């Protein structure tokens, strides 16, 4: 948990995949509502860059996505999580996890 999505570095997102994540969702405040003015806008750009990297190395850019929510939108949060988890389940394990399983 980070105080602001603006604190998320690209390397942290890639590290999640190195550590075995099949998908990563980044959830930030609503655009225009950032306490630090542009934290979530920066995060959006970083998520897009990491999606590009994942696409270029055939892990898939659709395994990372940014969502924007306010703190009062609990039901929406649950819906987004279910949606993303469903999407990742449909994609199956990431190619690096498949390679690791085959190597084991």
């Amino acid at each position, binding site marked *: 948990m980070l105080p602001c999505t603006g604190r998320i570095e690209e*390397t942290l997102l890639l590290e999640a995949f*190195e550590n075995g994540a099949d998908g990563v969702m980044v959830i930030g405040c609503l655009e225009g509502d950032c306490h630090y003015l542009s934290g979530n806008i920066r995060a959006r750009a970083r998520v897009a860059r990491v999606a590009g*990297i994942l696409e*270029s*190395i*055939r892990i898939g850019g659709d395994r990372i996505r940014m969502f924007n929510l306010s703190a009062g939108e609990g039901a929406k949060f649950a819906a987004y999580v279910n949606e993303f988890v469903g999407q990742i389940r449909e994609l199956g394990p990431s190619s690096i996890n498949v390679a690791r399983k085959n190597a084991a």
Partner: protein
Amino acid sequence: MITGTPKPIEEILEMVDPYDRIVVAGCYGCVTVCRVGGEKEVQVLSSTLRLARETAGKKITIKEVCLERQCDPEYIEQMRSYVHDYQAVLSIACGAGIQFLAEKYTTTPLLPGINTGFLGVTERQGEWAERCQGCGDCVLHLTGGICPVTRCAKSLFHGPCGGSVQGHCEVGKDTPCGWQLIIDRLKALDQMDNYTKLKPYKGWNTSRDGGPRRIVREDMI
């Protein structure tokens, strides 16, 4: 600063393909400022390489380092204690830094991770533009602080050519005519006499024409 752009990951993967233990070396100088070869870029590139290589079934061990500058011997020397434990160094410094590393560590293959660009400025975040070609004979005091060598596509010295149309250069409508910029600036400075003064031919002997250049400052040796 010296600017650069990252090489495509496919090209880098091809370069590192023969190796399974490498150093990824960044530089805290210019390439950190233009966000192509600093500490963060070392981390992202290393992570990307590890993911790509493990996915392909060829794991790679990477030592991540970022030197203060790769163009100064005292910082390059800091790699000596471990560089020979690795099969190659992938440097994301500018071409000068990479070559200097190669000169110091002659038995270690050096691989360039970026394409070095030009001497430029940050016009806005994520956008850099060329301002100097290092011709070795600066005339900015005569041209309103705008370089005719760099900003004019033909490096003309005595005013715009016929390809200057409404302030734009014929090479592209996004390129302002360097001489239009100079004249506008000289008018604003009330220095148009600099434009009309006859000047001798520029000596290009201080530029690249004589091959690689060297500066020797006897007072500093």
